[in-house]
């Protein structure tokens, strides 16, 4: 069966160039980057080259890049590492759980947290950030691009407000990296999270930008790796891969790949909406990353639609998987004010560098007819249809 993968906000395949770049570091180039001998020097160079590549992608210095095990660790390091008991934190209601649950933990250890609301397009009002500031505010943390809708937050405006108030600003850029250019100077952030597997590097790799001069309390205790900000022997193959993925992301912007991807996404979105009535885009009218569209299909359960599509070879997603693997309504869509049934009827389509025009056509041939079939079999839809 042909399988088409349009769930790249969940994870992306490691690109062949990235696999090639990391391959030597599993076998012949195996040194511990902290060792003083030849083997250590060899891998140290590889790690520092990767650090420079990542710094170039983010517009920062190499020394400001801390390699981590992924987006969740980066978010936790930033959120937990910049505040202490008694501090106040400002965040939003549409953060990834890596930030949201880290903030819940902060509340348990004596911090105060303000969760800002969003409008119907899932946008935060920067004035809300300003109004939420208190004398003990220590950190503002706002997601740069939301994982479910792809909507980009006004991080530059928020960064300015935070800088003027002299509070730390962290942004979770896991879903923005590689999709839109990032310049930490423009954002004026003190910390910024990156996940490797969202930009075609392997799972278990990530980075945190930490602005020079920012003291961050580490999560782990051990050796003085990563300038004492992240103890533990470096994951050299993973770091090399992340560096390569960062290079490829930059090349992609130079080649206009983001515009091409936006065109494919728009073709997919418009193609679906042209064939399906009572459907629409969540986050319509807001600026989005080029690879994501989130569409609601009234009168159906997104869960059944995702399963039906998977059985026909198309991988997409809906809501958030709880620990059992069952789907719970998305907190992001709910925060945007969507009715519970509409939130449950919403699907996320997200493209990757490997996605082709044929992939989009495959989805266009499959999604509308599957939605029609589900609606035909839905007791809710039948009732609505006959009562009209």
């Amino acid at each position, binding site marked *: 069966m042909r399988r088409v993968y349009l769930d790249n906000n969940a994870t992306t395949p490691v690109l062949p160039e990235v696999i090639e770049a990391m391959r030597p570091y599993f076998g012949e180039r195996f040194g511990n980057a902290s060792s003083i001998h030849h083997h250590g020097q060899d891998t140290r160079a590889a790690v520092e080259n990767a650090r420079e590549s990542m710094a170039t992608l983010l517009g920062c210095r190499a020394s400001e890049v801390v390699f981590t095990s992924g987006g969740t660790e980066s978010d936790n390091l930033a959120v937990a590492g910049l505040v202490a008991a008694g501090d106040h934190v400002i965040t939003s209601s549409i953060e990834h759980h890596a930030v949201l649950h880290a903030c819940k933990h902060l509340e348990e250890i004596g911090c105060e947290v303000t969760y800002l609301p969003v409008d119907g397009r899932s946008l935060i009002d920067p004035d809300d950030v300003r109004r939420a500031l208190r004398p003990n505010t220590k950190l503002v943390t706002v997601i740069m691009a939301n994982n479910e809708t792809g909507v980009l937050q006004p991080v530059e405006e928020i960064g300015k407000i935070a800088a003027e108030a002299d509070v730390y600003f962290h942004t979770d850029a896991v879903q923005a990296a590689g999709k839109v250019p990032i310049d930490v100077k423009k954002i004026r952030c003190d910390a910024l999270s990156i996940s490797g597997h969202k930009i075609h590097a392997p799972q278990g790799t990530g980075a945190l930008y930490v602005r020079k001069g920012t003291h961050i309390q580490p999560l782990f205790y051990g050796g003085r790796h990563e300038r004492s900000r992240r103890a533990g022997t470096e994951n050299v193959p993973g770091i090399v891969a992340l560096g390569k993925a960062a290079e490829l992301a930059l090349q992609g912007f130079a080649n206009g790949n983001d515009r091409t991807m936006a065109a494919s996404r728009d073709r997919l979105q418009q193609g679906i909406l042209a064939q399906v009535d009572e459907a629409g885009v969540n986050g319509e009218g807001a600026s989005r990353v080029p690879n994501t569209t989130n569409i609601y299909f009234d009168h159906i359960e997104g869960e059944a639609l995702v399963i039906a599509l998977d059985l026909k070879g198309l991988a997409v997603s809906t809501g958030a998987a709880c620990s059992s693997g*069952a789907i719970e309504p998305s907190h992001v869509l709910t925060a945007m004010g969507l009715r519970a049934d509409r939130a449950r009827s919403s699907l996320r389509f997200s493209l990757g560098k490997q996605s082709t025009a044929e992939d989009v056509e495959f989805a266009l041939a499959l999604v509308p007819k599957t939605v029609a079939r589900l609606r035909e079999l839905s*007791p809710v839809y039948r009732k609505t249809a006959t009562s009209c």
Partner: protein
Amino acid sequence: MNTKAIAVAMSGGVDSSTVAAMLRAEGHNVIGLTMQLWNQRRLAGHEGMPESVKGRCCSLDDVYDARRVAEHIGIPYYVVNHEERFERDVVRPFVEEYLSGRTPIPCSLCNNHLKFDQLLIVAQQIGAEQVATGHYARVAYDEARRRWLLKRPADHSKDQTYFLFGLTQEQLSRTLFPLGDMTKPQVRELARKQGLALAEKPDSQEICFVPGGDYKRFIDAYLADRGESLPDTAGELVTTSGEVIGEHGGIHNFTVGQRKGLGVATGSPLYVIQISGADKQVIVGGDEHLYSRTLRARRLNLISVDGLREPMRVSVKIRHRHEPAPGMIEKVGEDEVTVTFDQPQRAITPGQAAVFYDDDIVVGGAWIA
């Protein structure tokens, strides 16, 4: 492979896992589905509720077991979330029945509203016309009657037809019970042969969402979780001759036939004979008062016949562990029947089901009023 897909309702237990493995081995296109019905951690922290629950329906361990079976036999597997429906159609009514002085059977409600309703819809939506479960029962189409029949399984000790009396013709026509001709030891043997790691997993016994079987604590915890308070259903303990002999703390603490926990000491053993929801009275008396020859039941569902135009001779089961007792059923209202037993039956309990059998065939059933 272009054979029609069959969805298997997988609970993570031996029975449904074996069904999935059997159908897969027979070459069917099998899709595994687990219904997430109740968050076992939801009431954790309330008094008497455990912090973690192992080996129960919808626990993470069970989902893990079901998923590992699906991986082992090589079928696609999904967990579908029906928590809202389960709470609305099973948990809520369960609590309300107890608070009204009746003794509910949540398993039948779950079968009627979830397993053979929502799950059939999901199955159809994802391309599976039929759903197979691990119930011990048999289903067959009868040409002469032109009806789908529900029958008792070969292994009467595992018979689950009592919980399935609410199934409609449409539901039965799309249901498979592959274990109907097998005994439990045979099922375990087959599970071992298929290499299923859970072949020796113990059977589940209690109501899946009530930890430790303590339904009173569950009701307290559930209402507290909902921010509701337990309604005051305390009242008098009254003998069958009308004498008030004490007080009780709430009618939901009692079930017909109960002997322990009445809080009064008398010379001869006393039993709960009747619970009166309207005036909150619990009527108690000697064992001899527990016997009755008749009952009335509502919300009738018929399976083997399309109507009850005249009284019919059947055997009737009034609780899951009850040997069917011969008697006559007669329709007395739109969806109401009376049952007249040949011999008086002990502890006929409102809220339970009366299920009618013609030998091994389930004629139908209704809820005891």
